[in-house]
């Protein structure tokens, strides 16, 4: 038996936590670079501000309805998320972190799920101030749907126990197919062509046919809607085949030196992600692009290159990224975005080394581990000088709230 716990309007709720004056006000949080709306408080939803609304189109709402706008404050969200997850881990036998604001729990063996869910919900709200919705069912896919129902229908009290098959069927019939876990908008369009409109239609389809025409995963999803568990807790997700680090620039980049800094910083981030997943990569690509909407002619290009052997060492990828960037760089353009991708990722343990690559791998691992440890400790930050000390290409975060829980000089004041 699974439970999916999902924080309501997580980013917006975090912003309201230490600003009691905003508790009932419309609050929106913008994505990286203050691009578009990624989280909305209930009052902002009531105003009809859609998810994904670009920031520049909010001007009228801000003026007319006094909407409060925030840049993404990841330090705050990560701290609050950690608190919520820790509470879940204390109360549930097993927890699988699914995203910053969602977790699957194993709730097998708990008799009164409804009461358990309510207790969980009350505790999280009391201890952190965050409201969660909880959906419980025999499969993860059904738990996800139960969670959506818990959010949508206030009469549920935020907790839905979907063990009963009759209740399952009632919900499946009213849930559009694109709301099923793992069915995106694009896939749902193809499914609709086959007459699959609701979650119920998908569950009723022949699984062999779904596997042949789509994928094993979709066939499993359909079986899960039928109540047959196919995805276990902590079922190891397949290792990531590629890792991407990319961002739009706060200010256009026109010089090669500044672009080098940006690419080096993205490379460092990607390598850190790589090591966190205990992986090595063997090749990488670098891409740069100008704005497709600008009047000036568009230029975008990417280059791909390989190392002699797999590596997790930022320095190897820095050298490679430099060569790759120089091969695609064109002077005279105003670039708005760049990024790097690491490919051919493999786990660090069963590694086959080429004779060339073998030496020094241990020393490199030790150095990188030391680096990551310092950067994760929260006490200091070591970075590569080639990404620049005061770079001009960093993010726009014009509406950033204080780091209320992670910086002593930013903690909230009481009178």
């Amino acid at each position, binding site marked *: 038996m699974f439970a999916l716990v999902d924080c309501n309007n997580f980013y917006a709720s975090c912003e309201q936590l230490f600003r009691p004056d905003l508790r009932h006000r419309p609050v929106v949080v913008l994505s990286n670079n203050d691009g578009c709306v990624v989280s909305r408080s209930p009052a902002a939803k009531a105003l009809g501000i859609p998810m994904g609304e670009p920031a520049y189109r909010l001007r009228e709402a801000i003026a007319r309805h006094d909407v409060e706008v925030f840049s993404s404050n990841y330090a705050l969200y990560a701290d609050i998320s950690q608190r919520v997850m820790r509470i879940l881990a204390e109360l549930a036998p097993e927890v699988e972190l699914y995203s910053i604001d969602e977790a699957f729990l194993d709730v097998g063996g708990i008799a009164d799920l409804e009461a358990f869910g309510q207790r969980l919900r009350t505790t999280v709200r009391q201890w952190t101030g965050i409201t969660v919705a909880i959906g419980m069912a025999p499969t993860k896919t059904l738990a996800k749907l139960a969670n959506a129902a818990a959010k949508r229908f206030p009469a549920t009290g935020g907790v839905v126990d979907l063990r009963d098959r009759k209740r399952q069927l009632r919900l499946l019939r009213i849930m559009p197919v694109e709301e099923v876990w793992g069915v995106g908008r694009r896939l749902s369009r193809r499914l609709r062509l086959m007459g699959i409109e609701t979650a119920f239609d998908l569950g009723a389809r022949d699984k062999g046919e779904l596997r042949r025409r789509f994928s094993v995963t979709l066939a499993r999803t359909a079986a899960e809607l039928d109540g047959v568990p196919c995805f276990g807790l902590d079922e190891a997700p397949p290792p990531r085949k590629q890792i991407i680090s990319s961002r739009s620039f706060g200010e256009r980049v026109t010089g090669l030196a500044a672009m080098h800094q940006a690419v080096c910083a993205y490379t460092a981030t990607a390598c850190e992600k790589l090591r966190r997943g205990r992986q090595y990569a063997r090749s990488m690509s670098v891409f740069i692009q100008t704005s497709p909407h600008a009047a000036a002619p568009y230029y975008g290009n990417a280059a791909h290159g390989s190392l002699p052997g797999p590596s997790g060492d930022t320095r190897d990828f820095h050298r490679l990224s430099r060569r790759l960037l120089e091969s695609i760089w064109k002077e005279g353009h105003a670039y708005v975005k760049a990024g790097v991708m690491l490919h051919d990722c493999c786990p660090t343990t069963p590694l086959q080394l080429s004779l060339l690559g073998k030496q020094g791998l241990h020393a490199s691992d030790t150095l990188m581990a030391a680096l990551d440890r310092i950067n994760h400790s*929260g006490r200091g930050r070591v970075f590569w000088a080639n990404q620049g000390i005061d770079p001009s290409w960093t993010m726009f975060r014009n509406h950033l709230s204080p780091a209320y829980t992670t910086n002593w000089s930013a903690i909230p004041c009481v009178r």
Partner: protein
Amino acid sequence: MQIQKIKEIEIVGRPEATAGAFVRLATESVSAGFPSPAEDYIEQALDVNDLLVTNPPATFFVKVAGSSMVEAGIHPDDILAVDRSREARHGDIVIAIVNGELTVKELATTPTLRLIPRNSAYEPIVLREHDDFEIVGKVTGLVRRFK
């Protein structure tokens, strides 16, 4: 074993949930000559958070901005640890939200619900049923750094 000498004091500014503040106490003083096997032994580092933070996921820190609690020994710029998981009772010092503002006061539940400032120059806040107020948590500790 007696604690003889403080060898190293390091204070780092984040609560347990994120990083650790620690004060390490060595258990032996350094001496020349034949090394004692106990010299390498360092007791578990003391963590100030153990005194302040009883329930890490529910504990937050706030800074005092006014002087409404000076008679309770709470001064401007003091840092308070607030445990949201502890139920506040009559006589506890609490953090509350009143009129959209965070405030620190003493909670009184009898004879009527009030938030009492501990400064004779201030008036108690009487809470009525329809007031927009909420008790955030109980104040469980205080940190003051001397300049």
